[in-house]
């Protein structure tokens, strides 16, 4: 009965989504207040229904109710509790339900926190959210019903893919979906603006917190996925330019561009038409990502079940939404008034440059991702586009952008002074030069690009700090007054600083870990010792161990530094009997920002084991940098002028004014 309740709630939600798609939008077009006001309660009810349905599916997993096909296919009674919960979205049907749950969650949040948005815009935004919700609910109900039953319930389930039995599954997909789906709100705002034919600076102010929120989640989701792949797959790699990774990276790039163009729109009313286009583009890429990952056109650990019918269904949704919104854009965008004027060298100019490079980089990733699919569809020729392609296209497009990051925030609006900005960056440039020289001095010509990369990373970090300090005028007015000015700066200033600083941190991690990594592959026998970047590792043997739903062979290594024993490492090979599938569990030791990484290979009959060991200097900076960026994003959201739904002391009149900077 409980399972049927979940199914019924989902059907009911679909009907409500249809109502939400039509009634509020009709109300907005005909200026009927009562119709518009239905939007918020319906959005909340939708959330309650989908949440109920999701809770029911979770219950079926917890109770190991194998009469439900989805649970039988993807769960096992001996599976640890946490994987029973995260296993709910570790399969196609459940993950689509999570997708929709997050979609309606955002709908409900818009309903709750957009009291200051004019009624017609708010109603239309929720209406557009309703279209997306209805489409994906129909998809779930028609092709991917998670509540389907088996007449004769089996006693035991098939277990979850062992690669997914990891804490990563509990974190990575929800974060990533919060990011992907969060951009549906900016999309809805863009489409609503086109429908209503009106757009102004206030629009950007309402949209930016949502874009920031989605961007923060997407950043964390991608970073988490990268770290998960790094420790779980046992190859020591953290980014593979795999189409599935690209699918999440493209909305991130476009979303980053959107964040920046929305600033121009909010402050200067310029780039309106472009911002709307970017909002549509970003969510289109999110949808494309969903299609690529869920349709089975790509084979990867993310593609759970290959079913052509599902692929076709998502493709149709994709075409309707992307095609429809771009058609609407072509038709209505000319109605939107063009905004302010600015010199090429100005804050606006810098942000346009940022957008140009980010968009070009997005396109290069898009081409690299779709070209193999297109080529195979047209000629049948099978190719793979891998890291060399992206290093050659994405890399060069990023370098000018990264070089320019510190200049942007130092340029004034309308007409900037490049010379003055440069003067304020002398110190940052000096620090970067010193860092590059230090790397060159330590490693010499062995790694030619490393000093340049490190210099660039330090340049971005130092530039971010320099920009913040120059806003306090600390060198002119003294330390104490400067500090009090620092405290008084708007939070968005700190957000910008941390966002850019984080980019530098990540870049530093990438450069150091790539250029100075030590890798070693060898066959060891018990008692063998080998050297790894100043650490001596002794392999002492391998022993079996029993886990809750797997058995494993655990290798043991003693790590010594200068004769003293400092740690032990226990990499293992697991076998999950339910699927007869082996996995490799790497053992990772963190020293400061650097990591020692050991994974096991094949065991020989004579007790020898293949071992792969890495020392990756400063690699954790890659993920710590994304954390810094995300914190920057969160601080920006809490900025007074963007604070979502905060009660305003005095209403109105503030929309057109921006704080003096």
């Amino acid at each position: 009965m409980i399972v049927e309740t979940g199914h019924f709630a989902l059907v009911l939600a679909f009907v409500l989504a249809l109502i939400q798609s039509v009634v509020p939008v009709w109300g907005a077009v005909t200026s009927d207040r009562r119709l518009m006001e239905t939007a918020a309660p319906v959005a909340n009810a939708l959330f309650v229904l989908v949440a109920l349905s999701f809770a029911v599916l979770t219950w079926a997993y917890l109770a190991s109710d194998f009469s439900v096909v989805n649970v039988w296919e993807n769960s096992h009674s001996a599976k640890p509790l946490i994987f029973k919960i995260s296993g709910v979205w570790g399969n196609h049907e459940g993950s689509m339900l999570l997708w929709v749950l997050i979609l309606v969650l955002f709908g409900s949040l818009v309903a709750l926190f957009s009291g200051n948005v004019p009624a017609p815009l708010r109603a239309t935004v929720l209406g557009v959210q309703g279209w997306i919700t209805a489409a994906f609910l129909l998809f779930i109900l028609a092709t991917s019903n998670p509540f389907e039953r088996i007449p004769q319930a089996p006693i035991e389930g098939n277990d979850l893919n062992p690669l997914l039995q990891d804490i990563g599954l509990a974190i990575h997909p929800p974060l990533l979906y919060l990011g992907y789906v969060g951009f549906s709100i900016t999309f809805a705002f863009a489409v609503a603006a086109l429908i209503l034919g009106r757009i102004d600076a206030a629009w950007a102010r309402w949209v930016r917190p949502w874009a920031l929120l989605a961007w923060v989640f997407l950043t964390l989701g991608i970073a988490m996925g990268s770290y998960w792949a790094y420790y779980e797959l046992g190859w020591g790699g953290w980014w593979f330019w795999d189409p599935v990774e690209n699918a999440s990276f493209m909305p991130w790039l476009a979303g980053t561009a959107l964040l920046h163009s929305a600033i121009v729109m909010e402050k200067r009313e310029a780039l309106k038409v472009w911002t709307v286009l970017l909002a549509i583009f970003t969510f289109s890429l999110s949808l494309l990502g969903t299609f690529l990952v869920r349709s089975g056109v790509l084979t990867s650990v993310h593609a759970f079940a290959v079913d052509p019918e599902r692929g076709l269904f998502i493709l149709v949704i994709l075409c309707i939404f992307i095609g429809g919104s771009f058609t609407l854009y072509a038709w209505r965008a000319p109605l939107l008034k063009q905004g302010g004027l600015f010199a090429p060298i100005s804050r606006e100019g810098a942000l346009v440059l940022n957008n140009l490079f980010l968009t070009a980089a997005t396109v290069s990733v898009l081409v690299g991702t779709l070209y193999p699919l297109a080529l195979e569809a047209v000629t049948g020729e099978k190719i793979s586009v891998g890291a060399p392609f992206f290093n050659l296209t994405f890399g060069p497009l990023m370098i000018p952008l990264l070089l320019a990051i510190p200049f942007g925030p130092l340029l004034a609006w309308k007409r900037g002074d490049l010379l003055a900005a440069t003067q304020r960056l002398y110190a940052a440039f000096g620090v970067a030069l010193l860092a590059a020289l230090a790397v060159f001095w330590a490693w010499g010509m062995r790694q030619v690009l490393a000093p340049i990369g490190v210099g660039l990373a330090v340049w971005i970090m130092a530039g971010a700090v320099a920009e913040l300090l120059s806003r306090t005028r600390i060198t002119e007015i003294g330390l104490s007054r400067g500090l009090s000015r620092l405290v008084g700066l708007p939070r968005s200033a700190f957000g910008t600083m941390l966002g850019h600083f984080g980019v530098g941190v990540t870049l530093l991690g990438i450069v150091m870990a790539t250029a100075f990594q030590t890798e070693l592959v060898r066959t060891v026998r018990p008692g063998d010792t080998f050297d790894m970047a100043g650490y001596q590792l002794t392999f002492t043997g391998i022993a079996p161990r029993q886990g809750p739903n797997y058995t494993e062979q655990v290798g043991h290594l003693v790590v010594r530094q200068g004769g003293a024993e400092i740690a032990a490492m226990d990499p293992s090979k697991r076998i999950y009997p339910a699927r007869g599938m082996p996995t490799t569990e790497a053992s990772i030791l963190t020293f400061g920002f650097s990591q020692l990484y050991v994974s096991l290979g094949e065991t020989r009959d004579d007790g020898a084991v293949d071992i792969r060991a890495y020392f990756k200097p400063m690699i954790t900076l890659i993920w710590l940098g994304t954390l810094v960026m995300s914190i920057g994003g969160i601080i920006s959201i809490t900025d007074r002028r963007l604070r979502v739904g905060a009660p305003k002391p005095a209403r109105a009149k503030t929309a057109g004014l921006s704080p003096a900077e």
Partner: protein
Amino acid sequence: MTRKQRRLTLIGIAAVVLASAAGLILYALNDQIVFFQTPTDVVAKQIPAGQRIRLGGLVEDGSVQRSDDAKVSFRVTDTANTVAVTYVGILPDLFREGQGVVTEGIVGPDGIFRADSVLAKHDENYVPKEVADALKAQGVWKGDGASAQ
């Protein structure tokens, strides 16, 4: 500057950036992509030594030989032809004789394929799509997925 000049400057910069992006992409698509080949392709097309390809097929039964320092050699077959492969490193968990595999690397002057990466299946039901298609073309494909184990 007048409005027109400003606009032209912007458009000019945009054109330069986009043109260089397009140029990079086209160049990279010519140079940096790797074609998927079956053992039969390797034999029939006389792929020159040093060219980078992806070689896919089944790991021939009884062909896997390990030596010290994690060196492995095996043969990849599509049942019509076979290619000998050497690889140094740790093989994926699901690498097994008789199972599908995709390797990337270059053909050596001695005709032995030197792989620098070996990809096997992501789970027990999955056979790399290229391999599945190639096997279907050879008529030795045995059912979809589930029976592969």
